[in-house]
Every structure is written in structure tokens, then in C-alpha cells.
């Protein structure tokens, strides 16, 4: 899922500036699951804004990243001065595109693609590199979970299974090694992995995907 974190109230108020009639729009997908931008959080933010003197209302759509879910919002958006989207950056952009005469402010910082690893704890698992190779690494993504995106083994600072860069994180290479060891596949790690083709990633420029069979 896409994980995000609500911006501090102070920042949201600063963004809103003189705009006093506000619609807070939550999203029912990823950010609902990670408890940062769903119906509950939209209701919460709207009531905080009201306490701060704004005239704020809230609404939540199933998925802000698909325009068909946004169409019904037209009437509610019409009268307000500004919109705060609690969706990920995709939702904010979809809203901005759909209601281009309105200012749409991001109420959330979109942080990463990841999953909940414990109650109340989310971790990044994928950077969308465009050419998945996790099968070579025991199902642990070195691009994302190793702070230096190393493909050929741990750096010199991995200690006690923790990453030298952020010692409260697992060293991805310890996880990779342990997983392959448990599968009796450690010798596969001896293979020198050639440089990755980053042209499929964001490095290749803005990405687009088309499916001939689905095009109208």
C-alpha cells in the first residue's frame, strides 16, 4: 500500500492562509488502511479546522486516484475556497486536475510503498524500480530496504543484523542472507550481479504504461 503521514496542523493552516471555507477530502484506500487519510482522519481534521475558526466540512471518496470517484464531488467543491486532500500525492494531483479552478492542498506527506509490520508500524518495501528482482534476494528488496541499494552483499557497517545508517532498521543484507541460508541457497549470492538497468525506474524519466488490449 501507499503509506502517508498527515502534515502537522500548523503547516496545514499555513497552507490554507486566508482561505476560510474548506473541504477536507479523505480517501478510502491505502491511506485509510494506514490510518492517515481516511474517513476518520478527514472528520478529525475538519473538526480541528472548525475549532481554529475555519468553515470546514469533510467528505471521503473510495479512491481519490481515479477520476470517476471524484465526479460526484463537484457540487461540494463548487462553493468552497480551498480543498485539503488527505490522499496520497496521486489523489492530490487527480483532484487538482479534476477541479482545476480550485486550490487543492496536500494534507498528507506521501512517504512510501510499504506495509504494516506491526500494529502501528509501517515499513517501506518497494521503490517501484520497474524491473523487480526480489526473487534473487530471498524476497527482500535490496533497492529499497538496503540504505545504499547494494546488489552484491552487505556494506562494511552492518552489525548485529541492524543497518549502520539507521540502527533501528534491519540490515536488508542480514535478512537476505538469513533467508537464503534457510533455503540452502547461499551460494547463489556468490554470483556477481551486474549493474541494474535503471532506465525502467524513475531515472528513465516520467513513466507511462499502456495496454493495447485495454485501449479504447
Amino acid at each position: 500500500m501507499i503509506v502517508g503521514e498527515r502534515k502537522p496542523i500548523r503547516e496545514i493552516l499555513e497552507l490554507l492562509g486566508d482561505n476560510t471555507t474548506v473541504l477536507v477530502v479523505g480517501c478510502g484506500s491505502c491511506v485509510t488502511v494506514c490510518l492517515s487519510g481516511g474517513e476518520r482522519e478527514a472528520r478529525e481534521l475538519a473538526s480541528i479546522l472548525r475549532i481554529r475558526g475555519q468553515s470546514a466540512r469533510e467528505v471521503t471518496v473510495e479512491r481519490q486516484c481515479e477520476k470517476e470517484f471524484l465526479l460526484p464531488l463537484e457540487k461540494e467543491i463548487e462553493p468552497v475556497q480551498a480543498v485539503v486532500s488527505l490522499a496520497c500525492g496521486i489523489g492530490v494531483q487527480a483532484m487538482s486536475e479534476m477541479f482545476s479552478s480550485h486550490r487543492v492542498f496536500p494534507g498528507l506527506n506521501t512517504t512510501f510503498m510499504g506495509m504494516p509490520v506491526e500494529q502501528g508500524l509501517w515499513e517501506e518495501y518497494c521503490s517501484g524500480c520497474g524491473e523487480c528482482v526480489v526473487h534473487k534476494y530471498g524476497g527482500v528488496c535490496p533497492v529499497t530496504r538496503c540504505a545504499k541499494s547494494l546488489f552484491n552483499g552487505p556494506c562494511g557497517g552492518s552489525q548485529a543484523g541492524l543497518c549502520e545508517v539507521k540502527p533501528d532498521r534491519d540490515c536488508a543484507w542480514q535478512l537476505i542472507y538469513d533467508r537464503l541460508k534457510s533455503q540452502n541457497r547461499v551460494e547463489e549470492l556468490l554470483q556477481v550481479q551486474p549493474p541494474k538497468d535503471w532506465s525502467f525506474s524513475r531515472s528513465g524519466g516520467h513513466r507511462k504504461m499502456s495496454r493495447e488490449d485495454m485501449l479504447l
Partner: protein
Amino acid sequence: MSWLKDVLESGAFAVTGEVGPPKSPNIQPVLKKVNQVCRHVDAVNFTDNQTAIVRMSSLAGCLLAKEAGADPVMQMVCRDRNRIALQSDLLGACALGVENVLCLSGDHQSMGNHPQSKNVFDVDSIQLLEIFKNMRDRSAFQNGEEIKSPVKVFLGAGESPYADPVAFRAMRLAKKVAAGAQFIQTQAIFDIERFEQWMFEVRGLGLHKKVFILGGVIPVKSARALRYMQEEVPGLVIPENLIHRLEKADDAKAEGVNICVETIERLKEIEGVAGVHIMAIAWESIIPEIVERAGLFPRPAKGAEHNHEDPKRT
């Protein structure tokens, strides 16, 4: 031609030192440090923005050292440059006669003085070794295109015998050798027993016959400095008894040098260790004493073809 390579191939126990370039364009500290160490080491490493702190570029330091008559080792990390820049800088180094290159992944920028920067890590250190090896041996860039004149480079890598997963460390060295490493400079050794254990595994894989291994040492000035390294520097193992020795010593600095010299004496006895790499960070002036007391002076004499001394600069 790399003098370091000649020394290692001659079978002599090699000595290399390290110079951290200054945080300014001032060449004086570089020349001073090079002059302090150059008669006592066979080659001098120039770090590449070590610990992610901006400093004069390694290549500039290498050129200054070369003009002063030393054989420089250019360190290159993968943090700040992509494969385009790394290959370009190898060509540049080669053009300027800098022929020893040490390929490293690099410290993460969050540890340095520009933690807001974006990192690169387009390739890792092992991929970099392979790219450079192919530039030399196949006259080919990473994309396969031909390089029209020969690339000369003596390729090195770092290795950290103490980092985890420990069972993978010797294997990782094997990968570095397969990728092109001709010499290795290790992380600083304080726990000599664990280093011996690692060397035992290295010999088990026959790697000591394929690559020159230089054991890293750091002379420390105080118990506090050693404690700091124990707690803060990733990839180091520092036995308590060494810290106690420094605490008890009347002259901790002298005791730090004693420990360093003892470590080198032990390294000289280990089968497969081809030399020592002395990382006297901000204490380069101590290198001559260490080398002399470890019985490693005088160094092998350079032939005329290795003498690049430029009287204007020295």
C-alpha cells in the same frame, strides 16, 4: 605504472598510508602530509569525501601527491557519482597518471555534513570493480562501447572482516576478487584473533593467492578515542582490554602507538597478509615512527621510471 603493484608483486610487505584531503582548496596541508609520510609508505590513499563530509576531491589530492613523488591511491565511492561520472573520472585519473584506484560503496550521506543531499548508488562497489576491470581488460565501457586507448589501473577494494553477517564476509571478498579486485585494504584491525579467523576462511577459499591483502590499522591517541570508535564506528570490533591498556597508560599516545606496532608485528606473521594500511587520521606525522618501529623501514627503493618528483612543488 603503479609502484604499489610493483612492491606487492616483488613479495615485499607493503605499507600504505592515508591522507584525508582538506576542507578547502589549500594545497599546503596536502603537501605537508604527503611529505611527512612519503618516504615511509609505498603508496598514499586519498579519501573520497570520507564520512560524507565535503573535502577537496581525491583526484586533486592524488595529482598533488604524484607531483610530490608519491604513488597515490584514488578512493572512489558510489554515493556521489553514477556510472557516467565514475567512468569519466577513471579516464581522467588515467590521463593524469593516477593508476591505483580503490572502489568503495561509501558512507551514507546521512552520516556527514550534508544530510539533506540526494545519493546516487547507481552501482555498488563490486559492480564498479567489474566496470573498471572491463575498461582495462576489454577496452570497453559499461555499455559495451569500445575505448580507443588502453586504460591502466591497479584495482583495489575495501573489506570489513568484522561486519555482519560474519559468515558472508569471506564470500564477499571472493566476489570482489571475481569482480576485479587486485588488492584489498581492510577496515581497521583491533581484534587480531577475529582477523586471524577471517584470514583462515580467506585462505580456505584460496583468495590470499589471488589478491594482495593489506591489513588496516589506526593508531589511537586516547582511551576515549578508542571508546568512541567502539561505540560509534560501524564495522569495528574493539576489545575492552585495549581500552583498559590506554586508560592505565601514563602516556596514552605512546601506548596507542605501541598497540599499533604490535598489531603490525602480528599481521606480518599471518599467512596471506601482503602488507599494512595505516590510517592515521589527522595524525599522519606518526606514520614514520610506526613504520620504523615495525621494522618496515627503509621501503623498497623506486627505480628511475617511478620517480616523478617535481622540484617546483616539493
